[in-house]
């Protein structure tokens, strides 16, 4: 049997290195908040004639809408993200644009005031915090018969934090180069990741719990290693099936739900690695430390 847990130091060192990269990326590039969090307007327009993005940008600058972010959807619609517009502002802008580029159709208009944006930001932060604390409490409770249930809970939450930081880092880099911002669907994805990503951790820990109860071995590291290898097939297979459907959503539904799908795609890959290798490695490191401290 492979001794993967024996290489736990390497696992944790490698993890620390790429997490550092992710954190630095978040620090440098920052995550661009979407209008749900920063307030503003998104106007999606469909032009009958062909309009290039550069021309549209120039026209918007000319109309007094500097610093707009323009994206084109697969269907050829333009998504224009700008400061908060009143209905009258929007009507005016649409008239200016149709005078210049010909007939246009408004596909979607979404405008969010600073008041709503501030509430959304606050409540989202509360939701994420509650989710992590709830996971910690539930995991500690679920593994209450283990010698140190708090360790199981803490390790699980650390693994979740790992998945979230990795995904945020990915988004910071991708967002910088692809002009992505963090929408509410992104947060939904993160919370779904927290709820679902922990499944893998539970499966591995559940097996450790079972093998410990059965008394397979006295050595915690050996039990963890064995449990990890036994559950590897299941973890891979369930990630594969989930990723198939996530990819289907990403490829066929597209734009509005993109953030959600990308978060799950990236987060679950990170989550498979972290729940399989990092979670048991963390447990073992802590257990060993405790043994060393309690040894005379």
């Amino acid at each position, binding site marked *: 049997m492979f001794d993967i847990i024996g290489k736990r130091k390497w696992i944790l060192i490698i993890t620390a290195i790429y997490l550092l990269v992710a954190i630095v990326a978040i620090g440098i590039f920052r995550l661009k908040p979407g209008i*749900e969090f920063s307030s503003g307007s998104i106007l*999606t327009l469909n032009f009958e004639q062909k309009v290039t993005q550069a021309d549209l940008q120039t026209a918007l600058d000319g109309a007094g809408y500097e610093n707009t972010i323009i994206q084109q959807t697969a*269907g050829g619609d333009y998504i224009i993200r700008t400061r908060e517009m*009143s*209905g*009258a502002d929007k*009507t005016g802008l649409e008239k200016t644009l149709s005078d210049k580029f010909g007939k246009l*159709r*408004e*596909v*979607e*208009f*979404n*405008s*969010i005031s600073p*008041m*709503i*944006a501030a*509430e*959304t930001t606050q*409540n*989202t932060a509360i*939701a994420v915090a*509650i*989710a992590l604390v*709830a*996971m910690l409490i*539930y995991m500690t409770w*679920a593994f209450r018969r283990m010698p140190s249930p708090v360790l199981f809970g803490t390790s699980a939450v650390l693994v979740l934090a790992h998945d979230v930081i990795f995904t945020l880092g990915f988004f910071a880099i991708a967002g910088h180069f692809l002009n992505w911002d963090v929408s*509410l*669907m992104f*947060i*939904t994805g993160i*919370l*779904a990741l927290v*709820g*679902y990503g*922990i*499944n893998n951790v*539970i*499966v591995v820990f559940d*097996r450790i719990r*079972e093998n410990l109860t059965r008394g397979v071995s006295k050595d915690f590291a050996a039990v963890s290693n064995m449990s990890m290898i036994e559950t590897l097939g*299941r973890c891979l*297979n*369930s990630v*594969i*099936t*989930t*990723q*198939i*459907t996530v*990819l*289907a*959503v990403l490829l*066929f*539904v597209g734009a*509005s*739900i993109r953030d*959600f799908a990308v978060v799950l795609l990236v987060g679950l890959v990170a989550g498979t690695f972290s729940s399989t290798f990092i979670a048991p490695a963390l447990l073992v490191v802590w257990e060993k430390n405790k043994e060393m401290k309690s040894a005379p």
Partner: protein
Amino acid sequence: MRRRNSIVFIVLCIIFALAVSVVFPLDKGILGSRGIKLGLDLQGGVHLVYQADLSQVSGDQGGAVDGAMAILNNRINPMGVTEPVIQRQGTDRIVVELPGTKITDQEKERLSQVDILQFGELAAENETAKWTDELGRWKPATAEIDGVTKPLSSQYFKSNTYVNRDQMGNIFLFFEWTDEGARISKDITTRLVGKPLGIFEGDEPLRSTAGIPVAPTVIEAITDKGQITGLSFPEATTLSKQLNYGRLPVPLKLIFDDTVSPVLGSDFVARSVKAGIIGSALVMLFMILYYKLAGLIASLALIFYAALVLAVFKLWPGGGVTLTLAGIGGFVVSIGMAVDANVLIFERMKEEINSGRTYAASVEAGFARAWSAIWDSNVTTFIVCGILYWLGSSVAASAPVMGFALTLFIGVAVSMFTAIFVSRTMLRLFVGTALAKHLALFSSVYAGGRG
């Protein structure tokens, strides 16, 4: 034991048949259910949130907001929207949802004006303008009545406006001034003879069918009544009804606006269905290739799952689950997650088979041993669903999240049922048959090698 299992199997078949009969046709109801409801983002529509300004209300604030809601309702009804939703959120907010409609900006603007129409006169060079359009710069037309400056608006219309058409086919909206209105109007129009009198809705000029601002030139002083021309018959009729319901008791400020054209939504539905079909077909293919006969059973359980989830969507209390784009995303992703329990069980069965147990013992042990992990992991997902549901219900901008939370919750709950009951019942059917002796059929390709 086997007999009991056969009964359970038959019951499950009946449940499946019922679920399918509830689900199809998708857009119509059966058995007391309705068609699957689509959210505003999928069928198109308008989602608005207004903040009522209660700073001027000293007495009954709740009553003022209720009054505003009644007026909003009355202004929306003439527009012919089916099933509008007008709800109070908190103490001072009003949520308006108009599904399936694409209302014009002018109509949207009109909803939240205290007085629908305001009158203006051209501003001089050095005066500040309230409105600017292609006809010029305008300021509110005001008159001094008993020492108080009063702007002229539809506040002074009697609630008996009506629409009529003359022999030439011109459409007129007739109105009468109240006593106070008559005094203001007389004062203003006497001053404006030969000049235009602009008519505005909120920040925008009232525009005729030709798109030109309605600004008639005053021919003589208007004292007791007047008319507005240039609108189409339906436009004028709607406006007349809205005017007759009176003014909003409090000013409303639009703080959230999401307007989706129906075209965008129908596109999403088609693409989501495609994603769902292709995604689940690939998941089934994977399961069958990897777990063979057991994978086939998981695939059948998945079809059962999909039918049951859609049936629950339709039968959910309160007229069914409203499917949003995020909700459909949650449903499609939950298909991938639903087989998770099966994967856990099959992997467990594989181990039991490899350790030399019989088929029947492996099936039972596989389910028994996998249960604790399935339960724990689904409970964590339920917790997150609860948190997401709260987030979605707390803020206007995050409403779509609620749909996701609900569909994911239903999906995970149903998946526990199908994974346990449906898969297990079907696997038990094979107990004691010749097929059960070919253990490799139920285990993965690697099973033989490691045994």
